[in-house]
């Protein structure tokens, strides 16, 4: 089937820390705050568990956007995890931007367990952004010979 006939359904991976953001996502759920089904959440203990390799792997396997959510800075369950995560992700995103990957495809948001609304708002805006960017070809394509 030719590609252009297919409706674009993005694949979006969300890494959520167990203590804040995953709970925030649960709260969004129990408050019935909708966001698109394109988002699939992976539970990690802390945002500092998210290895850049996971994010690159997702892109390489066809993800169109990857978002990472953690506790607000200062509120990390493990005290400092999100501070490390913040630096790691800042540098990684900057590198992706540097090699020409649209920086809207990656995002970090701090969402607390009490912020169900923020969780769904974040996901809605992220998905909207990914729709506007369309399919991710660049990260899957970097090594292909021209």
């Amino acid at each position, binding site marked *: 089937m030719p590609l252009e006939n297919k409706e674009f359904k993005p694949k979006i991976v969300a890494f959520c820390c167990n203590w804040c953001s995953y709970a925030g996502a649960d709260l969004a759920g129990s408050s019935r705050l909708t966001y698109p089904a394109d988002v*699939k959440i992976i539970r990690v203990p*802390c945002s500092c*568990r*998210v290895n850049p390799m996971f994010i690159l792997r997702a892109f390489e*396997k066809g993800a169109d956007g990857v978002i990472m959510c953690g506790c607000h800075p200062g509120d990390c369950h*493990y005290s400092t*995890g999100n501070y490390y995560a913040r630096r790691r992700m800042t540098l990684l995103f900057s590198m992706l931007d540097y090699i020409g990957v649209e920086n809207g495809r990656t995002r970090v948001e701090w969402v607390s367990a009490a912020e169900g609304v923020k969780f769904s708002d974040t996901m809605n805006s992220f998905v909207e952004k990914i729709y506007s960017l369309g399919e991710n070809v660049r990260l899957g394509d970097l090594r292909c010979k021209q």
Partner: protein
Amino acid sequence: MQRIGVFVCHCGSNIAATVDVSKVAETALMEPGVVHAEDYQYMCSEAGQAKIAAAIQEKGLTGIVVCSCSPRMHEATFRKAAERAGLNPYMVEIANIREHCSWIHKDMEEATKKAVILMRAAVAKVNLNTPLQAGESRVTKRALVIGGGIAGIQTALDIADAGYEVDIVEKTPSIGGRMSQLDKTFPTLDCSACILTPKMVEASAHEKINIYTYSEVEKVSGFVGDFTVDIRKKARCVDMDKCTGCGVCQEKCPSKKALSEFNRGLNTRSAIYTPFAQAIPNVPVIDREACIKFKTGKCGICSKVCQAGAIDYEQKDEIITEKYGAIVVATGFDTINLDKYDEYAYSQSKDVITSLELERVMNAAGPTHGHLERLSDGKAPKEIIFIQCVGSRCSDDRGKPYCSKICCMYTAKHAMLIRDKYPDVNVTVFYIDVRTPGKNFDEFYRRAVEQYGVNYIKGQVGKVIPQPDGKLLVQGSDLLDNRQILKEADMVVLATAIEPNPDVRKIATMLTASIDTNNFLTEAHAKLRPVESPTAGIFLSGVCQGPKDIPETVAQAGAAAVKAIGLLAKDKLLTNPCTAQSDVLLCNGCSTCENVCPYGAISYEDKEVNDHGIRETRRVAVVNNALCQGCGACTVACPSGAMDLQGFSNRQIIAEVDAICR
């Protein structure tokens, strides 16, 4: 290869109404490793758990995936069920197809597709799970209560009565908290001090309770069952052991201009002071900012008059380090700052006061000795207007978006007390809604209207206009009569919104307890675990968790105590086996992981290794599993991938990623 069973829960119609559960189960059978799949009405029910157990035994399952609600709800349930059936509990994974799927999506096809993907990710993960054994850690049989108000006192008493040691840390010079500042309490109009003081005395006399007043928590480390806390005992400059509480020093102190915190700054106190007569301990402190001796070096009168020789100007802050098994936060509240609400003229007129200030005015030990009078000129007011919801229910950035919950009732109380004691004083209340859920609460409010003739006007006040003659012109709405009212008053009382004690942010950070956008501590579950923080071993008592009145606070304080007792009663705790592990053959010994570990759980040892025949001694990382809390910071810092996290291994997470992106 694993033998995996997949169990899809309908959760009644919660899941089944939007997700085609049987299709999820059918699709599961096509996944690698899956040898069994079924769906059922309520997997968490006894019958559901029995199905899981039966499948484990009959099909010889080595891992299971339950597609159901959030793992934060029932992961523990299913792990226990698996364990009972002989499966290692860590061979269980949950696909959250309720909170993350059926509840947020409307389209059945779409939701089913997503549920299938979530199931696949869980199956892919469980394929790589390995059985884990929880370790054990000891429980220090001592509790810390932060805050010595009614919530903290009640929690401490309940824990102590169960036979455990409790320390109370209170920031101010005395326990008692906000309740000690109140005059009367609703809905029975008991004198606040009369019911609180006995509790304070009981706490201070209890052999299991140790009270640190004028002290603050400075540092917290460790984890559930084994917290280590540094407490800063601020220098009182008065020897607690020598002081007899005679009060002569306070009488003779020449510096009497400091504003009384206890009386909300409405009058003054001496530089050496006990905040109020019934203070516990009845030992004064020296306010260094106000003390002439500290400011100029001259004076020393208190020391001269003290027969016990208790005054010690050289006293230094002291740090006490203590271990605790459980920590209860009971930090309470304060009223919000009214700087941004000057349409009510709070900063412009002394006769515009907050309700808490009115408590002090009405109290016999207060600045007016209990006489209702204007603070500007001491005259008896004839007309008092109460304004409700000052700063509460405000979604702009001036106030608080929540209802402070206690104001409707205490305003009715104030109105009633004033009308009772001063029948010639007219009382008007401007309200938006009168909220009186609670036993005997609405009856109480109606009594204020019907029996005491308090004039309730539905509508907010727009502006309080001080008049040249000292009166206050109140311009408000009467929404029922649809008119704008201009009414003169002698006093205006503002039902000021309450907010968590500002220190709570700092404390929450130390405890790694989560906090919401309004600085209230978050409970582990809004309905089912209302007195526990999501951080194990931390419990919540009183207003630090949300606005509440005294009966509710006391009830919650008891509940928090029970939870803490439940923890302290255990000799050992099972530890989380999802900890980091270092592969000696891959470890470079570079110390990068050690640098990011927040628990000091990683150390380095020279170890004899056999790397494919090469025997050598290498410097390698070793994780102390009792200290590791499983955050995973080290796993990402490690460039070689030697450090991995059990239960959330690199390969497991990558398998999930792959399954989702497939």
